[in-house]
């Protein structure tokens, strides 16, 4: 067992999959000789060569389009967005070509679109995005957003092996900040399954990515105050693990949703609707949410701190909910 960062977990997944299956290729800006802006793909070119590790021009539409074409011939491309923010440049390809291909004419698109996302790194409005909901809103895609090294590696493998286009979000704040021991050997984590990070009875906190860690921090504080919070990490946003969400709510009867995405149109609203539809009579309190502000991501640290959810905000909301 080795202790690795989340970034290393992603790299290992790429290495191992490319070793296992020569149909897996990688393309993106600066991923080859340079090893990627965050060094995720370092070493891939040396091992697998330029036919499989392709340095592209700055053309998100072309990168994603070419990956789509490759997947029609049975390859399994892993395309990188240097910052996931730039996925906006190829929104058309993702939502109109990739997402609709199998539904319309039965042509599966087994590719992975991956990139660093999220804030807390003083990145400002164009390097800190959490654009996941544009794609959660698009049927035909899968959207994965791990929060641990173990999950990142296992989920990326699952994404590569999946026959559908998978958007794989990597929270850049977590890249090197979290370490974990992972087992050696091949393992996958299933797409579409949430996981309980902390068992509890008084209320459920649902979260994902960096906010999952913040939620755990808050749960520790709440535990000391006698409030026993259950913390669930979604891991996959599309398809959403309805069963786990409803099961946890039926156990604790109170729900707080935390995400770093902006408030309006964030997945908290979707989860709240699912719970109202599927477990209304198990609700013992209003569904609360702690999210980022409805603004672009600001740049200066005090502004960004105010923008982002933090343990304090989560604890305050959880206290109010527990008392209801």
């Amino acid at each position, binding site marked *: 067992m080795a202790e690795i960062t989340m970034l290393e977990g992603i790299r290992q997944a790429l290495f191992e999959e490319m070793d296992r299956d020569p149909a897996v290729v990688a393309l993106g800006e600066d991923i080859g000789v340079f090893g990627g802006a965050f060094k995720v793909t370092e070493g891939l070119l040396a091992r697998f060569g330029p036919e499989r590790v392709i340095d592209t021009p700055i053309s998100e539409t072309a990168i994603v389009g070419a990956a789509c074409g490759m997947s029609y011939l049975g390859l399994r491309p892993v395309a990188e967005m240097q910052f996931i923010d730039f996925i906006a440049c190829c929104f058309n390809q993702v939502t109109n070509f990739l997402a609709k291909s199998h539904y319309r004419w039965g042509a599966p698109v087994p590719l992975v679109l991956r990139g660093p996302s999220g804030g807390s790194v003083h990145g400002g409005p164009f390097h800190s995005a959490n654009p996941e909901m544009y794609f959660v809103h698009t049927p035909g895609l899968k959207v994965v957003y791990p*929060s641990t090294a173990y999950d990142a590696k296992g989920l990326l493998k699952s994404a590569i092996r999946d026959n559908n286009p998978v958007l794989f979000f990597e929270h850049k704040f977590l890249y090197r900040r979290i370490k974990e021991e992972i087992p050696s050997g091949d393992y996958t984590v299933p797409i579409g399954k*949430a996981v*309980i990070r902390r068992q509890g009875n008084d209320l459920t906190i649902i979260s994902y990515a960096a906010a999952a*860690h913040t939620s755990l921090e808050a749960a520790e504080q709440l535990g000391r105050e006698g409030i026993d919070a259950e913390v669930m990490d979604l891991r996959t946003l599309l398809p959403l693990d309805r069963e*786990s969400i409803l099961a946890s709510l039926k156990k604790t009867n109170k729900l707080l949703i935390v995400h770093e995405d902006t408030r309006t149109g964030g997945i908290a609203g979707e989860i709240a609707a699912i719970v109202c539809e599927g477990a209304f009579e198990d609700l013992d309190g209003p569904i609360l949410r702690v999210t980022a502000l409805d603004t672009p991501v600001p740049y200066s640290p005090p502004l960004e701190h105010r923008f982002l959810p933090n343990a304090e905000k989560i604890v305050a909301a959880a206290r109010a909910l527990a008392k209801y």
Partner: protein
Amino acid sequence: MAVDVVMPQMGESIFEGTITKWLKKPGDKIERDEPLFEISTDKVDAEIPSPAAGVLKEVKVNEGQTVPVQTVVATIEAGGAAAQTAPSPAKQAPAPVPAQAKAEPPPSSASAPAARMPSPPPGAAAEQAHARAASGEKIRSSPLVRRIAREHNIDLAQVPGTGAGGRVSKRDILEAVEGTTARPTQTPAPPVGGAIPFRAPTGPSPLPPGGAAQSTAAFETAVPREKLYFGHYEVQPMSVMRQKIAEHMVLSKRVSPHVYSVDEVDLTGIAALRAKTKEKFEQAAGTKLTFMPFFVRAAVEALRAFPTVNASVDGTNVVLHKEANIGIAVALDWGLIVPVIKNAEEKNFLGTARAINDLAERARAKKLKPEEVAESTFSITNPGVFGGLFGLPIINQPNVAILGLGTIEKRPVVIDDAIAIRSMVYLTLSYDHRVVDGATAHQFMGRLKHSLENWSESIL
């Protein structure tokens, strides 16, 4: 036949009580009205007499446990001629029937929990709930609670609500279902992932549990809680009474703008009178002669002259009370309580003295009745008895003024350009400037001072 013993309702806004001591154990014989157990509630601690004669069969709620009002705490096997049909719990509960008959409870005093919404008393909950159900109003409850009630065929109207705003909480309904605090059967929890959970960063030293139960201003901290815990310390959870006091004080200060008027009064005359007649008084009256009845009598006169000081505030209405119910703050070993001399304006000196002593004694013996700690219109407190020149007391809501008595001591004073040694005392009037202006306050004090310095009433 078995007779239920229930937790009585000790006041309009009291929802629960804590059993502090069982005076009998199962198997013991008990007479009707014999003290059976002691309780502590928000407002008053009390000894509860047995509702029936017989043998104590079963104790259902143990010492230290807090249960909602009307909970069956024990059963008595009633037997023999002394046994009568068990009186209804409502009759046994000291809560006076008039309180239930009131259509609407008065606006909750500041000492009620959940400051945001006035909570109807659960003792009257059944009646009120029936009225509510009849009028079609939904009983406050969450979807979960309604489902559980439905599944177990429980009429929510019968379940006392202790949640926020008087709603029936999950705990309430579960207790109604099982009489315990068991949780519903759990659906299997989602599987804990094979992932190794993230190790949370080490945080500050663990904090004792906070007062999560009540959501009132009293329990705010001005600094982050972690900063309170450093070095060596012992954590003492607040008693119910202490919590109530804390709440009351914060709210009183918040609601009433306090202004203080201090005056110095020459008690030499009264002191001399007291010294002279003390023995005779105590023999004849059968009760001690303190300074307090003098102050109370003087206050009553002053209140008669300045009715604004004998009032309450309701929004933009000033409620002028016709009776003068004087609250006397009594220091207890375990806290503070303010028993009330009702209709003090009808009592003479002797009656006042008797009332004061009786209330104080019974306060210390935990034998006060709930109505004896309610409905004051003016209060007097005596910090001076413990030392200190004078105090700046907090108004006892919903009064608009409180009189604080300082230490009575001999001091040199100037009279007619000569120095004399007199028994002096500082009196403070804390008053609510929403309705009592400085002029009134000072005039009131002046009147008080005049009465005390020119004592005319016969005390025997």
